[in-house]
């Protein structure tokens, strides 16, 4: 008998924790697939995860910006989540994300890899809206 695919327990526990947080948080798997974000993140972006569903790494990078302080799009490879999941190390950045209604939000992002006895299973990113409110407009 073949077994159904099961998410690693560490991702399951991370998702369950994130679901209970009021801090925007994002979860990607080891392949960089965006597999969950919580309600707070959905409010920030203007779209619930249930509406968007799982999306690939290039797609989630382009859906919501993000932009640097000059309004320039941040290259995908330089995003904190990508650094965390590919490089296996934490990363932090200040950036601007664009919600579905066009509003821009300036946030600080901290991302860290999910390391397990069996290696990296993905990464988590937590967004902290900055006191400045709206962020830079795209250049």
């Amino acid at each position: 008998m073949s077994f159904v695919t099961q998410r690693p327990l560490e991702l399951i526990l991370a998702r369950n924790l994130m679901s209970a947080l009021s801090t925007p948080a994002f979860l990607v798997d080891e392949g960089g697939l965006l597999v969950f974000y919580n309600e707070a993140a959905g409010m920030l972006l203007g779209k619930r995860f249930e509406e968007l569903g799982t999306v690939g790494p290039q797609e989630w990078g382009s859906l919501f910006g993000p932009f640097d302080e000059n309004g320039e799009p941040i290259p995908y490879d330089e995003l904190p989540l990508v650094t965390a999941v590919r490089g296996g190390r934490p990363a932090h950045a200040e950036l601007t994300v664009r919600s579905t209604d066009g509003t821009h939000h300036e946030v600080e992002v901290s991302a860290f890899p999910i390391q397990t006895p069996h290696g990296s299973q993905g990464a988590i990113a937590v967004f902290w809206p900055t006191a400045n409110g709206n962020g830079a407009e795209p250049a």
Partner: protein
Amino acid sequence: MKVKLWGTRGSIPAPGPETIRYGGNTSCVGVTLSDGSMLALDAGTGIRCLGLALPDEPARLHILLTHLHLDHIQGLVFFAPAFRPQTEIVIWGPASPEASLRDRIARYISAPLSPVEVRELPCDVSFRHCPESEWEIGSARIRAASVTHRGPTLGYRIDDGDSSLAYIPDHEPALGADLAQMDEDWISGFALARDASLLIHDGQYTDAEYPCHVGWGHSATSHALSFARRTGAERTLLFHHDPLHSDDQLDELGAAAQQQWVELGGDPGTLELAVERSEVELPARAAKAAAAV
């Protein structure tokens, strides 16, 4: 595949007249595979009686530990075959970044907690971390996966021919999750239990008790039943009884569980509370189908 429950209690042994029907020994399930190979699932105090029931002759035994809490390893130093030089014992368990399985078990099998050390055991004993992928023991294919509990903890699935046993004695899959709404692949332990012939699952707390024990790593009755229904297991035994639950209280818990089970659409005959020394034979599906005609 034959399954015998040698210990059904959780947390700490609970001997006494008030627990005589469901039993007071902690977790241990003996499994005899179709080719005669012998497995012990966990080594709580129930494994002492399992050891006494085994013939005194050369044998190879596999002990599959879900985790190293005391109620799952306490019987190891009282397991008679471990003191026979002609016995080979392979102990499987979860890996940990902290120390090897042998070193972690040796913290218990060593002074001052134990009169003997691991190196003094007369049997040929070895320790193996469970692999991520499926492996074989005798006629069975074994799969282990991490499940929601405190500390590194595994659940097991044993497939022998067309029969399958899922053993997840310490499990809190509903911690922070709505089991009725969650996609299957996001439910801890789901892949292990899916369509199993028999699911042995944590049912330590009543629904009324659970709010005082959230995060302790165990299930409320309704969580265990939701999990069992979602997985489609053919038969479920609620296991790891709370040491504070007397036989009479377990009778009440069982009756309430049956009612909930039926409300969830379950067949009343497919849910039971685990009883120490009870046995279950899992026939091949082909034989079951023939018997049903």
